[in-house]
């Protein structure tokens, strides 16, 4: 596995449902983890919210479909959607190829910083995945 696709980068926080969020100033970038994409298999469709939508933490943000399955994606944090990864419309496979980079899903203006602090660290997420297997 390349460095870029390592399972648990430490510059972000994780949910037990295998989403990640990385803060850049007041904006949170959201995606799914390496583990999640590998469990899903070939991603062929990504359904994301409209720009401007207000999301509550834990709310369904969209869906990711692989050849065989449909998975709901939940917002790790509350906030307004300020950008959607439009490239995924034509190239949903980016989620498989680079889940921590080009395969990001949405950016939200983070409303509540302490919410982020409540998420799993990379170490805690690693334990969560490894215990689950």
């Amino acid at each position, binding site marked *: 596995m390349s460095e870029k696709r390592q399972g648990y980068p430490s510059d972000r926080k994780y949910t037990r449902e295998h989403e990640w969020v990385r803060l850049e100033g007041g904006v949170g970038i959201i995606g799914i983890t390496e583990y999640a994409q590998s469990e899903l*298999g*070939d991603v062929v*469709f990504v*359904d994301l919210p409209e720009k401007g939508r207000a999301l509550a933490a834990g709310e369904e943000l969209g869906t990711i479909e692989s*050849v065989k399955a449909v998975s709901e994606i939940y917002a790790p944090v509350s906030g307004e959607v300020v950008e959607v990864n439009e490239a995924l419309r034509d190239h949903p496979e980016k989620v498989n190829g680079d889940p921590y980079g080009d395969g990001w899903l949405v950016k939200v203006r983070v409303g509540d910083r302490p919410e982020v602090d409540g998420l799993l660290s990379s170490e805690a997420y690693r334990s969560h995945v490894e215990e689950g297997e």
Partner: protein
Amino acid sequence: MTGLRKTPLNDAIRRLGARLVDFAGWEMPVQFQSVIEEHLAVRARAGLFDVSHMGEIEITGTEALALLQHLTPNDVASLAPGQAQYSALLTPQATFVDDVLIYRLEPERFLLCVNSSNTAKDFSYVRASAARLRADVADVSDAYAQLALQGPLAGAILARVTGAEVGAIRSYHFVEAEVAGARAILSRTGYTGEDGFEIYLPPGRAETVWNVLLEAGKGEGIAPCGLGARDTLRLEARLPLYGNDIDETVTPLEAGLGFMVKFAKGEFLGSAILREQHERGVTKRLIGFEMTGRGIARHGYPLRVEGRESGSVTSGSYAPFLKKNIGLGYAPAGSARIGQRIEVVIRDAAVPGIIVKTPFYKRRA
């Protein structure tokens, strides 16, 4: 996954890193690397599937033919030894107990290949029907492992590991021959829309033959394939899946499988109902559709035709070769026209699609 049945290839498949799932009580590979890559390997080169979970039922005796003529709509008498036929076990209502492949091994000896989830049901059904006939029915599923070698290069790869004249086996014909030292039935049949072979062999030899075939096809880029690709391949080729597209509620004429119904052979189970459907027309028909809006139709999603709910999607997926989202489902016969607009309800949104000609994919002859 405990308590699941394992095929003789379980160890070999695990070593290849397959992702395993519970499929009808069997631990089976859903994919090795990627469903899309496996799908495309079969369309362009060759793929090897473990389908040892499939059931086999042997029927022998002087009235074996009469029994099969009664239970199935196709004309079994037209089969010479060495020929195979796609058919169905029908209920008295002319609906599907199962869809089956019938092999005529000898004049009075037949082998049925049946769906794994239906093996016990089919066996009881055939055996009960044989009660007053001079025919013996045996569930011989444990005597066979089954591999499916599929794709345009399947014949060339198989020819390297058998003394049989592979090129001389015509479609829906089979020979009994040695493959990598194992006695096997080599049948030019399959479930992918490609040329290919189904290989029945003793379970103890399955792993050797599996490895030998993968080695023989290495240069051509043969791929071990899982049930994920098997499903997308069969859907593109519009081959029905029991439990999704066909079951005990639909007849072969409704499912678009009229080619397996041979009225000329005389009476058989459900023949009066089928004859009436044939004369008056069916009320519903299995249609194939392409999504024109964004979204993937999945089994069970509501299907609307001319604004009215007409049932649900029976099979739906992204089609890796066609790069489209396609599906099957039942529509009122009057609306089942090519070009007819439909809608699939995906997570509360009605997403448009259009009825298209099937098979979605047809290989070049």
